[in-house]
């Protein structure tokens, strides 16, 4: 072989040259893989942040309505009664009890609380109207933000009214309704009709193969019936598109007609007219004030009824609706009403938990690491301890939650033999206390801190220890004066990573009883509390749509807390390294 010819200089050896090319290409490739990996990671991160922010953005503002209250008293019941009165007044004081209740739901009962507090500190003249601004219900807020349904507005000026009949140009409204019907048809075809057809055909071919099977025959009959039902619905929808006149109900889009302050709701529609029933008072006789509203989502499929929409629209025209920064998100505790819920209780709970965790895990962890790394003899016992610390780091956090619940909250119950009694080991701490959460998370964080600190201590060159010892420093002085300061950045990073992990933990906190709904601010580490991740978990499971952006907003706040923590770590590192 040429390659083994020792007389060729290496720079002319073809085997070498070929290999050289391969090696450089491998180098290049590896660089591209690295870049690709970083790019993918960054892209995922950005996608996550953007989508969460996008999802959360509506939670950072809320709509409030200005009301002039006619107060009769300053207790919260009467305040709430006047709020309800003011809203119902805007709705034209409906006689129907159901409608009245519907109206009162536009503003949460909780709104009275804040006003009552303000009244009691400032005092008020009961004879005059008392102006307040209260947040509207979460559903109303979603409507005002355009999240509940699409609303199409058409010109209704120059309309003609004769009793229940209103004549105007309804072609735009018709178009919207037709389009909605066509969309429904296509959805039904896709999601229901085609699968039903496939099912029927499949059963039919099976039945053909096994003519005697009666059960199969029955199933086939059922499938055929289902296909017929869907076909009937489809032809019904198609007929509606072609119809001259369309009957409107809670299963179709709603058409509302307004003139000034008066509102009517269509029960049927055709290109040039609607038949309508009054919602609030009569229409304003000024024909130039006519307007048509098509609420695309059928009333049965949204949680804000037409009557509430009308009242909101009236408030809006009166200039009484305004959008504000949702300060409650930061200054309120949790609440069952999304418009009043905030993360402050969770934040306070998390801070208390993390203080307990930090106070326990950091000093104990560093001390353990220093002992193991600098003082302990290397023998079977210390290597046993070390292996088990590593094992501990691999234990799922939920197990620590179970352990914490068993030891600190419930206590371990040991029956005493021969005597009719039991002995309770531990226990006595309350469910859901930040103190318990902090202890459990400290147990969880301890191995991380010990391992990181040991690595940092081990990375300090032995020459530094030798130098100090040879100068006549004691072992403790060597560690305190030289080794620990040099290992500090690494120890700090490890501790912060451990604490950041702890801040985001949910499962162990749930297990020690941090599951209940806590609407009050925790007063101390031995008070029922909640924590940010627990709050996020709870909010994500609540049914109302308004909790979706709230959950995302809480996630953003948790991420910000982490960011601040990591920023602090970087700052401290920089200061230490100087």
């Amino acid at each position: 072989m040429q390659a083994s010819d020792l007389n060729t200089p290496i720079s002319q050896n073809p085997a070498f040259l070929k290999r050289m090319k391969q090696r450089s290409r491998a180098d290049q490739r590896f660089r591209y893989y690295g870049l690709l990996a970083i790019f993918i990671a960054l892209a995922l991160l950005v996608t996550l942040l953007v989508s969460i922010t996008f999802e959360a953005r509506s939670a950072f503002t809320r709509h409030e309505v200005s009301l002039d209250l006619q107060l009769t008293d300053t207790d919260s019941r009467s305040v709430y009664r006047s709020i309800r009165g003011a809203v119902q007044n805007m709705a034209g004081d409906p006689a129907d009890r159901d409608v009245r209740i519907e109206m009162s739901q536009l503003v949460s009962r909780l709104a009275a609380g804040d006003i009552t507090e303000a009244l009691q500190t400032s005092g008020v003249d009961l004879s005059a109207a008392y102006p307040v601004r209260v947040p509207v219900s979460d559903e109303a807020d979603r409507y005002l933000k355009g999240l509940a349904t699409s609303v199409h507005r058409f010109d209704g000026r120059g309309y003609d009214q004769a009793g229940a009949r209103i004549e105007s140009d309804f072609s735009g409204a018709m178009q919207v309704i037709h389009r909605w019907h066509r969309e429904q048809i296509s959805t039904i075809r896709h999601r229901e009709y085609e699968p039903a057809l496939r099912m029927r055909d499949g059963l039919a071919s099976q039945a053909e193969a096994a003519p005697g099977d009666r059960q199969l025959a029955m199933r086939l009959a059922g499938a055929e019936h289902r296909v017929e039902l869907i076909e009937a619905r489809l032809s019904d929808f198609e007929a509606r598109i072609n119809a001259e006149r369309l009957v409107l109900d809670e299963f179709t889009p709603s058409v509302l007609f307004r003139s000034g302050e008066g509102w009517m709701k269509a029960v049927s529609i055709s290109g040039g007219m609607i038949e309508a029933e009054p919602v609030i008072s009569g229409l304003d006789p000024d024909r130039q004030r006519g307007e048509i509203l098509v609420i695309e989502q059928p009333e049965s499929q949204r949680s804000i009824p037409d009557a509430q929409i009308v009242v909101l629209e009236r408030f809006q025209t009166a200039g009484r609706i305004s959008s504000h920064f949702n300060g409650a998100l930061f200054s309120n505790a949790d609440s069952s009403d999304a418009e009043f819920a905030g993360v402050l209780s969770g934040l306070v709970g998390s801070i208390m938990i993390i203080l307990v965790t930090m106070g326990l895990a950091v000093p104990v962890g560093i001390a353990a690491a220093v002992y193991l790394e600098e003082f302990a003899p290397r023998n079977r016992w210390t290597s046993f301890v070390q292996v088990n610390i590593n094992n501990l780091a691999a234990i799922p956090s939920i197990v620590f939650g179970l352990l914490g619940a068993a030891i600190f909250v419930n206590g371990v119950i040991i029956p005493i033999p021969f005597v009719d009694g039991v002995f309770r080991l531990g226990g006595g701490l309350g469910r859901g206390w930040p103190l318990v959460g902090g202890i459990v998370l400290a147990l969880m964080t301890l191995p991380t801190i010990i391992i990181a600190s040991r690595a940092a201590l081990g990375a300090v060159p032995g020459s530094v220890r030798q130098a100090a010892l040879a100068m006549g420093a004691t072992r403790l002085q060597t560690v305190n004066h030289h080794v620990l300061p040099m290992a500090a950045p690494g120890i700090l990073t490890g501790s912060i990573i451990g604490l950041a992990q702890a801040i985001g933990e949910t499962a162990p906190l749930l297990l020690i009883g941090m599951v209940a709904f806590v609407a009050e601010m925790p007063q101390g580490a031995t008070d029922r509390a909640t924590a940010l991740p627990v709050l996020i978990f709870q909010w994500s499971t609540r049914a109302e749509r308004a909790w979706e952006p709230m959950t995302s907003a809480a996630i953003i706040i948790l991420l910000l807390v982490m960011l601040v923590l990591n920023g602090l770590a970087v700052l401290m590192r920089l200061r230490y390294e100087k």
Partner: protein
Amino acid sequence: MMSDPILPSAAPAHAGAAPQEQAVKVRVRDVTVSYDGAMAIDSVNIDIPDKSVMAIIGPSGCGKSTFLRCLNRMNDTISGCSVTGDIRIDEEDVTARNVNPVMLRARVGMVFQEPNPFPKTVFENVAYGPKIHGLAATRAELEDIVETSLRRAGLWDEVKDGLHKPGTSLSGGQQQRLVIARAIAINPEIILMDEPCSALDPIATARIEELIDELRQNYCIVIVTHSMSQAARISQNTAFFDRGKLIETGTTEQIFTNPRDRRTHDYITGRYG
């Protein structure tokens, strides 16, 4: 053969000036060291005179560093290392259990092969010993000690404007002199040096050698070196180790001109296999 000419560079520089007799500072008797049962040095007996330089020479792995570490009990810090025998400094047994090694190390300073200043300022490096041993009552005293030590180490003029720069930012030779300044700042009686020049260039080496020659006036110095010429230039006495045994010890002049043992002869003439 015994009568073979000695390497020219190995000729003692101070030939003619006969080393005067000094009192014995360190008396080593029957010292044996093993690491995890493997013997590193075996029954070493040696007397080290005060106010002079003793050079320890020998091939790599023969136990020179191990021997040096016996003198300040740095072997105690190595797990698995056991030391037996008797070491007396000024007739005081320092191997006894009740002797505090911290106390001993204050009396016996050490300079390592790789310069190892603390990652602190020049000032802090030199001030460290006086601080932990409580030798300076005031800041002024401390500054005085630092200046004196740096002057004695011949480093003052080079660092006096940069006392608060990190010690690790100095050149290798300067770092080694800084380490020597740090060692003498607590005024020890003995200074151990383990190949202090092997990481330095010839000019820096020459400076350190000069320094050692000056320090000899006040201290008992034990230096391990791989350079025959260095041993010849700076030491008054020399000990030759081979495979954990002390083969021969005597005045440097005698060892280099008239070695008694064949192995010593072969080693210093560079014929060692």
